């Protein structure tokens, strides 16, 4: 093995680095362009030849977008909606996952589990219209609940939690907890949750990415400017009389930054969230 590794290293290492560096540059470039455009004025965004280094830095876009839109509120809305959706999904999925993992001989177990698996196949495109109609009948249009609830029944999350709990929580642990006199909820909260923390983090990240960036559902449900999330605010900034690109870029940077920072800090959970998606394949 050691020999193999050394050979590989001698083999094509500078070529690999060149390929990777080139790819990294290409893939990071739109991010750079976003950042640099955010600190250019409108005419400099459309400068000819294009201005690659945004110097001198102009902060006016941030001031403008703060003055002309409710961006602080939009940011708060996005955080609240994404946060609640993550929390609710994790709670609901881990509870259901535990149920399927622990109570194997409960009547209806097999049938209910099959139903859960079946729902992973339901495309969102088919349920969007009925859910919209339902939400308008319940008066949940233009509310936080209208954004939080519909996505929270995540069948894939349940399946994943069940797998993870089955593999990582030995049955003996339940029995031990029971002998200690712990109730079922206590067992869930104090015994199971600590063990499945990595899976929760990964699922949470997956839900967070989708919820934070969701445009379509926000466009449908959120009807007034003070309820807008960041993606919707950015979309609506595009006007028929020409888009204030500087403001769009400034808002875009603010919308992208939290996830990118979180990703840099918690790479493992993000990667875990994505690869877990492949488990079912």
């Amino acid at each position, binding site marked *: 093995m050691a020999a193999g590794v050394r050979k590989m290293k001698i083999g094509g290492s500078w070529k690999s680095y060149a390929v990777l560096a080139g790819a*990294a540059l290409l893939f990071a470039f739109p991010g750079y362009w976003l950042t640099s455009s955010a600190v250019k004025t409108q005419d400099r965004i459309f400068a000819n030849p294009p201005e690659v280094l945004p110097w001198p830095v102009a902060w006016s876009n941030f001031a403008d977008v703060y003055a002309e839109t409710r961006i602080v509120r939009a940011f708060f809305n996005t955080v609240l909606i994404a946060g609640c959706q993550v929390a609710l999904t994790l709670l*609901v999925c881990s509870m259901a996952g535990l*149920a399927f993992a622990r109570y194997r001989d409960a009547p209806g177990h097999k049938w209910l589990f099959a139903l859960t698996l079946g729902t992973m196949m339901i495309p969102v495109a088919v349920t969007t*219209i009925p859910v*919209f109609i339902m939400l308008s009948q319940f008066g949940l249009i233009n509310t936080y609940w209208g954004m939080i609830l519909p996505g929270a029944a995540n069948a894939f999350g349940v399946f994943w939690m069940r797998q993870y709990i089955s593999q990582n929580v030995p049955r003996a642990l339940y029995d031990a907890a029971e002998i200690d006199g712990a109730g079922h909820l206590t067992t869930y909260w104090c015994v199971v949750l600590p063990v499945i923390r990595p899976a929760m983090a990964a699922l949470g990240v997956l839900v967070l990415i989708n919820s934070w960036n969701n445009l379509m559902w926000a466009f449908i449900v959120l009807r007034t400017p003070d309820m807008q999330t960041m993606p919707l605010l950015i979309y609506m900034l595009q006007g028929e009389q020409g888009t204030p690109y500087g403001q769009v870029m400034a808002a875009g940077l603010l919308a992208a930054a939290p996830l990118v920072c979180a990703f840099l800090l918690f790479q493992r959970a993000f*990667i875990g969230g994505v690869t877990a998606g492949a488990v079912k394949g």
Partner: protein
Amino acid sequence: MNPPDAAVSATSNPANKGQHGRRLRQRCVANRWFYFLLAPFFLLFFIFGLYPLLFSLYLSFLRWDALSPATWVGLSNFAALAQDELFFVSLKNTLLLGLYHIPPMMLLAFVFAVLLDRQCLKLKGLWRAAVFFPAITPMVVIAIVFSLLFGAELGLVNYLWWRAAAVVGVEAGVLPWLQSESWSKVTVSLLLVWRWTGYNMVIMLAGLQGIDRSLYEAAEVDGATRLQRLTQVTMPLMRPTFLFVFVMSMIGTVYMFDEVFVLTKGGPGVSSTNVGLFLFDEGFGAFRFGYASAAGYSVAAGLFLATLLVLKMGRKDHTA
């Protein structure tokens, strides 16, 4: 053990099987926490999953805009769909978008994954982060950035193209990335490659890491070159991962929305309208809820069959 049957017989005929029923009830009571723990999920699932699914099926037989009274039209939504030129254009566009972006994306993802899989590689986290980060940026933002980069007259990409052409000494015209019906799909595909390569690279990396290293050593002992190891050992073992990535990308292309909604609005004309945008336009653009539901169901059914077909073909190849 067959719980569903037990449940049915116990409720339908409790007198005859009293003992069975009592046992069942005891088991239910003993496992009551199963139901308590499941309740929140199934409550949400019934309201926002199962019921809408059935409601949507019912809708597909109606003409309804959720505002004025509904009309029952039987199967005519489906009949109209079969003659809707725009629907078939969107199917064709979806197919082309898939053809344009999935192969290069999978190739790139695989190459990067193989490179990153090398144990001696330095700065692994940096490379991975750089290629992966597009997957977490808000699509609406990046689609607008792309519309700037690919602008006809003042976009950076065309500027570089002109400079490159000038160096070679060729007169280069404007590349109509977003203005031409034949180019719009290419531009959307570039956005898709950019967006999803890192995501799929990570999945492939996980697949690669699942391969038993001793197989490589055995191949090396047999005198296989690096390329041979890649094609003879890695790629066959990666087949399930490839299949997964392909199927997910296929489904994603069909239902994709943000990318086209923001970057091209499905245009110019309808040249980049995929199925996802078609469904949105019919549903929320025109409020033809019945028709959109019929289209949604048809697409979902077709896609389901296509997925089964792809999976079956993938497996057959494997055994052959």
